[in-house]
Structure formats: C-alpha cells, structure tokens
C-alpha cells in the first residue's frame, strides 16, 4: 500500500507543474471572465439610464414622454426650447448617456392621426463595448413605454385590450403531462441537455490528458525503464498512474465545471419553468446513479488513455494520441446534446450505446422519464468495459510493448499519428 501511495504521489507531483496546470486553468479563467462580463452587462442594462430631455411640445403627449422618462430614468437635464447644442452640452456635462428632443408639433401630429409623433434621440457612446452600445436601448424602451401610455390615452383602451390574447399551455413530454409552455421546458432542461454532456466531456478529456501527460513524461524523460525494474507489481504502477493522474485531472475538471456553471448561470434563460416542471427534476438517487455512471466513464477513459500512452513517443506524441479518446467522448456528448438518442435508427443507437461515454450523458434524461432500468443496464455495461480496459492496461504494462512500443499494425498506426 505504501508503494502505491508513493507512486501515486510521484505521479501527482510530476503533473503539478506550471506547464500542465497553466493551460488547464486558462479556460476556466476565460469562462469566469466571460461570466463576469455578461453579469456586468446585465447589471448595466438593469440600471436606470441618465438622460436629458428637451420638450418643445406644449401638448399633453410631450408631457407624457417627459413623465415616463422622469419615472424610469435619472433626468440630468430637462428644458424647453433653446438650442439643441446647449442641451447636448448640459446633458453630457451631467453624465447623461442620451438626450431626447420632443419637437413642437409632437402632440398635434398624434392627435391628427395621420402621422407618428417624432422625437429625436441623441445617444452618447463613449464606451466602445457591448455595455456602451446597449445604453441607448434602455432609453428606447422608455420611449416605447411612453408610446403605450399615449396609445391608451388616444384610444381609451385598457391595457388588456392592447394585449387581448393570453394562452394556457399543456405540454406532453413522452408520457409526462406538464401545464407549461414548451419554451419553459427548454429553459429548465437546457442545463441537463448542454451542461451535463459538456461536463462529462471535460472530465473525460482532462483526466485522459493527465494520464497521457504522465506517460509522455515517462517516455520523454526516459524514467519508465527504471520504474519498471523496481520491485513493484505492474498492477500497482498502473493503479498509481490511474489514481495520481485522475486526482489532478478531476481537480482540473472540477475547476472547469464550476467555471462553466458560473458562465452558464450568467446567461439569462428567462422564465424558470414554474413548479410543474419540478416533476422533471432529478432526485438524490438519480444523481447518485449519474455519478456512478460518470465514475465508470472516467475509469474507462483513464485506462484507455494509459493503453494509448504506452505507444507515446514523448509528451507531444501523447497529446496526439488523446485524439481518438476525444472523438469517443465528444461524439456522444454532442449527440445527446442535440438529439434524443432513443429515437435514432437502431444501428446509430447501437453504435452510440456501445460507446461507454454515452451512458452518463444519457442517464439524466432517462432518469427524468422513468428509464431507471436502461441507466442501470448502462452502468453494468460500463463496469464490464472498465474491468476489461484496466485488465488490458495491466496486460500492456506486463508485456514488452511498454518498452518497445511494438503492437503490429496498430502500433505502426499510432506511431504514424505522432510523426
């Protein structure tokens, strides 16, 4: 046991180096920064705009526009008549983002019913960015609200008459009946459809990458032969490589997942979906089953990466050999993101289900709609695949191939990939 821990610590220590950690941390930092940027944009859009207004209209509708702006914005300047240039200067000096000029015939044109009342919106864009450009949009929203008030006044209609149709929804999802619109369903499940497959992909790729790095380091630094002649069972070396690399890989994946979640949370999906959709949420046992399925996926990815890493010539070669694993992990992730696997043609479905990484991505959907049996069957299948791949990794470590890298045509093909 002490030998195993010693080797595991050695693996983790060799991987905890800036050259491996910095690239891994870069993407999460990017996601957090993007999330903060989007959060900042939402805060900016929620803030009351600072505007100036010049009302040259003596009628009631010009006053309605001014009243709407007073209630929904921070008015830094309000004037009547006078040159526009002076109003612009004073608005700007007061930190205004826009100036609204209401012309003299504004009310008259509306009351005549022949033409729209026109206002002129002067926008100051000092910040060339999304927030800077978006600021004038908030003033336009206020003008739109003023327009609605004027319509109610002119027509004498009620707000209900302006929006006379309301819908009630019933959505059937497989055998589940939900009193919610399909759009709300999409909002609620988007995390299941997109977030979980992406996290699974990230976990598999990062863990696999760490094992590959471990093998690449051994090959490049020529430490493997010395390690293999130590009085340690090869299965102990394999186990230590799996656990040591996985610990760093899973740590990286956790950081990545948290940053991804933070980024996704910063995106607004509108309506949460209502209580009726609570019926589609996962329970503790469901999450446990998804976790078990993910655990076996990671185990299989690590063992596969170790098998492929046997044929790595150096660190760069090891990264190239990660490619087949990325395809195996990425295919199911994208498939489950965009289609319902259960509705696919049998051959396609069979291929996807044969890939062990499909099952954790599929599990949340199946558990949501009572497909526990399919999930359990998938876990059993994954356990068998995991046992076989680990056995194969130990077999490779016990064979000449770990030293020579020879494996017939497969070995030639894998070497060709690294050229």
């Amino acid at each position, binding site marked *: 046991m002490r030998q195993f821990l*010693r080797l595991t610590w050695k693996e983790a220590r060799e991987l905890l*180096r800036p050259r491996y950690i910095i690239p891994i941390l870069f993407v999460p930092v990017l996601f957090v920064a993007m999330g903060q940027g989007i959060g900042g944009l939402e805060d900016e859009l929620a803030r009351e705009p600072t505007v100036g207004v010049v009302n040259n209209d003596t009628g009631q509708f010009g006053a309605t526009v001014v009243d709407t702006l007073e209630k929904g914005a921070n008015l830094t300047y309000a004037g009547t008549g006078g040159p526009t240039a002076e109003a612009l200067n004073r608005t700007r000096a007061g930190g205004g983002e826009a100036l609204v000029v209401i012309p003299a015939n504004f009310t008259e044109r509306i009351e005549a019913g022949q033409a729209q009342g026109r206002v002129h919106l002067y926008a100051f864009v000092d910040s060339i960015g999304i927030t800077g450009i978006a600021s004038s949009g908030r003033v336009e929203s206020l003008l739109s609200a003023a327009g609605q008030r004027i319509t109610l006044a002119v027509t004498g209609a009620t707000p209900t008459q302006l929006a006379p149709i309301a819908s009630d929804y019933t959505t059937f999802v497989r055998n589940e009946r939900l009193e919610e619109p399909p759009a709300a369903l999409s909002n609620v499940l988007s995390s299941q459809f997109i977030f979980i497959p992406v996290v699974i992909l990230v976990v598999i790729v990062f863990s696999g990458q760490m094992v590959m790095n471990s093998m690449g380091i051994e090959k490049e*630094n*020529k*430490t493997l*032969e010395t390690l293999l002649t130590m009085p340690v069972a090869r299965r102990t070396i394999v186990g230590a490589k799996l656990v040591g690399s996985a610990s760093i890989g899973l740590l990286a994946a956790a950081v990545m997942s948290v940053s991804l979640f933070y980024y996704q949370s910063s995106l607004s999906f509108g309506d949460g979906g209502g209580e009726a959709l609570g019926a589609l949420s996962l329970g503790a046992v469901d999450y446990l089953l998804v976790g078990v399925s993910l655990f076996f996926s990671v185990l299989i990815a690590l063992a596969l990466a170790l098998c492929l890493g046997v044929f790595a010539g150096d660190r760069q070669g090891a990264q190239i050999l990660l490619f087949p694993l990325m395809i195996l992990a990425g295919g199911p992730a994208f498939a489950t993101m965009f289609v319902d696997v259960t509705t696919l043609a049998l051959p396609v479905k069979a291929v996807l289900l044969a890939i062990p990484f499909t099952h954790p991505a599929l599990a949340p959907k199946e558990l949501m709609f009572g497909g526990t049996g399919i999930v359990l069957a998938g876990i059993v299948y994954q356990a068998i695949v995991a046992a076989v791949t680990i056995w194969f990794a130990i077999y490779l470590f016990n064979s000449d191939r770990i*030293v020579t890298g020879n494996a017939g045509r497969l070995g030639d093909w894998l070497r060709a990939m690294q050229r």
Partner: protein
Amino acid sequence: MATPAVAISDLQKRFGDTQALRGVTFEVSSGEIFGLVGPNGAGKSTTLRILSTLLDADGGEVRVFGADVAARPNAARAALRYVPEEAGAYENMTGRQYLEFVARFYVDGAGTAGTVERGVALSALGDRIDDRTGEYSKGMTRKLLLAAALMTEPRLAILDEPTSGLDVRNARQVRDVIKDYPGDDRAVILSSHNMLEVAFLCDRVGLLDDGIVVDTGTPAELVARYAVENLEEAFLEATA
C-alpha cells in the same frame, strides 16, 4: 558451489522478423564485474533488458541469484538495479528527493536517511543535489542515477553504457564508483563500446555478436587467445 549472480542459458529473443538473440549463454559470479561487449545491434541492451525483467524472453532461462526472472520477476527485481543507457530522473524532484523516492522502495523507514546520504556521497553532486533534476546536465543525471542504483547496495548492478556521453572527469568518477562496487555477494554487469573502459573495469568479458556470445574470458585471456595487443583487436578478431 555458490549460486551465480547471473546465469543465462540459451537466451532467445525475436522482434518481428529480426532474431535479436540466438542462444546467449554466460554466467557472472559474485564479486565480478562482467562486461558485455559487441557492435551496435549485437543484442547487448536486449540481453540486459531481459535480465532486468523489462522484456520477456522467447526461449532460454535467465536467473538472478537463483531467481528465474520470468517466474519470479519481483524476487529478481529486489536483487537488481538497472541503469539504462539513456535514462533520466523525475524533473520535478530534486536530486535528494529522487534518491529518497528510490530508497523507500528498498529500505525500511529507519534506514532511508542513511541510504540517501550514501547516495548523496556516491553522486558527488555537492550542493547541486538539492536542485531540481530538470536543471541537471547529462553527466550530473548519470551520476545521480548511478548513485540511486548503488546506494541501496543491490546484489546485482546492471549498467548499460554507464559512461556514455560523459566528459572525461565525470566518466572517471563513474568508473571509480563502479570499480569499487563488487563485494563477496555483489556483482556488476555492464555493456560498453569503450574497450579501454572495459579492460579497466571488467574482471571478465563476453563478446556478443549477432545475438550470440562468441567468446568469454578475462581481458588478458582474450588478448592472449587471439594473439593481439589489446581487447579491441581481440574483439575484432573474435567477431570477424
């Protein structure tokens, strides 16, 4: 009769279409430094790798102090240390940490410190022993690996081209360490292309050519047997 440190008989190994070893046979006794000499591709490294349990033999028998390397690889591994021709150390460890890492596989907790200090002395790296091995020159790495192999006092040290790529000073230091190593219950087997080194270090030499040992003897015996002036010429005569 004492158990030989190494007993290899009729060793066969094939890589694809290439028959690398065709019945290699020789023995190494305790107290000996045995040199395995041969041209490139003769099978020296393959023989040493099979002896070190890195490769499986296709035929024949290999024993290290009586332990069959195929049947009891961990018993053989406990008795031997192998320094490959182009080996390195873990770059993120200091030289001392590397020695500690290796020592703990062979020595119990209480004896580790003494073993590591022996390794530090053998390496002759001075203060640089506390630098990361990623910053070492090839010569320094070589000395560290040799120290790591010998500090635990293995019964059999297997050294593949131990002074390959070293400057004169470092090569001399390494040779001195090897020369002093064998004892009553210890042996060294090494391969080298440097005939002067082999003549200086080795008690006996095996001449390997095209996967078979063509002759064995002390350097003096081989020189006399082929009626030549030095080991290099004896080697050329034997493999002509």
